[in-house]
């Protein structure tokens, strides 16, 4: 109950702040009608009225910080999206923890770019039988497809294909080659 009352009060404060903000903007734009010069001054004044000199500094730096964060986030997302290959353990289709953030970034990108299609290619290492590996590659591709859909991509953007063990990324019969071949690749089209 207490908590609920507190949060109500907090919400109220917030909404007051918002209203104040709105009225300030309103005032500024009203005053802006007098001319661009005046408007600029008044905007400053407006800021002063609602934020004070110090807060003006804080406020404007908060804006750029936000922008910077957004830019950083965008760069981060883009960097994440540069990763398009995801690895699996032997005979599993479980998406690894480290792949999740990257796949979420891809899913968001796809959600924001509905015209973008992607082919999800599932692969297996050479061990075991070819036909079972074909089905295993498909299971891996399907797991990634489901993950992308759950995180915002739409089914129509996604196409899956399994190559089983037929298209290894790395030739050879070592643990390291196998680990690099058990994978799903996203191919943006």
């Amino acid at each position, binding site marked *: 109950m207490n908590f609920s009352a507190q949060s109500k009060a907090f919400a109220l404060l917030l909404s007051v702040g918002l209203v104040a903000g709105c009225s300030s903007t309103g005032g500024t734009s009203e005053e802006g009608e007098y001319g661009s010069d005046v408007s600029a001054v008044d905007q400053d004044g407006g800021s002063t009225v609602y934020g004070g000199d110090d807060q003006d500094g804080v406020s404007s730096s908060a804006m750029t910080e936000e922008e910077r964060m957004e830019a950083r986030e965008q760069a981060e997302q883009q960097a994440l999206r540069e990763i398009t290959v995801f690895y699996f353990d032997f005979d599993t289709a479980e998406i690894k923890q480290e792949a999740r953030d990257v796949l979420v970034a891809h899913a968001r990108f796809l959600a924001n770019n509905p015209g973008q299609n992607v082919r999800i290619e599932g692969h297996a290492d050479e061990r075991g*039988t070819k036909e079972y590996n074909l089905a295993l590659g498909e299971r891996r591709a399907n797991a990634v497809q489901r993950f992308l859909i759950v995180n915002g991509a739409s089914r129509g953007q996604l196409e899956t294909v399994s190559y089983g063990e037929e*298209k290894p990324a790395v030739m050879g019969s070592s643990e390291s080659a196998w680990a690099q071949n058990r994978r799903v690749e996203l191919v943006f089209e």
Partner: protein
Amino acid sequence: MRHRSWHNPSRAFLIALVLFFTAVSGARAELLIRITEGAGSAIPVAVVPFAESGQMPAGEKVSSIVQSNLTMTGEFRTLAPDKMLSLPSKREEVYFRDWRLLGQRYVLVGALTRSGDRVQARYELFDVNREERILGETAAAPASNMRSLAHHISDKVYEAITGVPGAFSTKLAYVTLDTANGKPRYRLQVSDVDGKRARIRLESQEPILSPAWSPDGKKLAYVSFETGKPVIFVHELSSGERTKVADFPGLNSAPAWSDDGRSLLMTLSKDGNAEIYRMNLASRELTKLTNHWAIDTEPTWDASGRGIFFTSDRSGGPQIYHMETPGAEPRRITFGSRYNARPRPDNDGKFVYYVHQRDRAFHIARTELKTGEETILTRTESDESPSVAPNGRMLIYATRQEGTNVLTVISADGGAAYSLPASEGDVREPAWGPLVR
């Protein structure tokens, strides 16, 4: 079931014939045989060079093809002609005592006669101990086809001695991968079982998988990625005509013919998950035979032609299952390790053969269906794609040897026989063709 002691690899000193691909006139590749090991307890047979009258075609002699065929099985040890005391070509010339002295159990003699563009062979097989003729026949073939004549004689000799039809006249289908020029070239090829007379039936830059012979030996079903995804084709060998029979969304894979050649078992994932279906080839009507969230694939009819073996990971990892009738509740067959896949039946319902993981290695193993007893048959460690000869006596599979994929033939209970490496790339996906009379 005579003469089985050689099969025990610990006692026997085994025969292995190594067959190499050699590039012959561009895209064509053939196999050469090299004997690398010998078989101590194999049956001694003397194949006497056949007498010849008239102009014989150039190339390998009929009797030497018969000799290498018999040796190839690992069940026979043949006598080099220069060790023979005489070279008889008919019964009156056979001195059994001489052959007994040379330690021979059987003697094959014969004569070839050219008439027009055909060659006739008259041949006789003798049991040295009983001093009896156990086979006598004449057979003819076009002069251009001495190899088929030799395979026919080999089949008859094999059957006369073992009681089981020979499989020397059958064909092998397999896929080679050539990456020499940077671009992968997958080639579906058909050859004699000794690797000779290989012919390319399909060439593609995309993978070709799972060739499967129709029961009459006239068609191959296979999976081709030529359209960018796995699609099942049926390919008529005489005309080269190809029909796309399954091109549904998702997987179209693992085709297997029914005994009557009218339907194909296959794996489709059009409903989101790999399930086994039966397709009537005339109507293209599909019947779904499994319905499980697990992977169900690699179906094959059992020896009776009524039940189906397949691979499923419904227990957590791939294992072999059997359905008494299509769609019946499956019974798990394999329990020996966490990875058993790609079943292939024998031809009398006693065993099922499959790929078996033991520790880090993949071997070919078999389980006796009545007892559930499992035997690992191979010592190689990256084994795939077992395919049983139509007479049930031998089995071919794909494995790796010195970094390349090769085919190896073993006896059905595990004796080593011979392997078929490719000099200009990999060989994989062997399918042993049917006996065609």
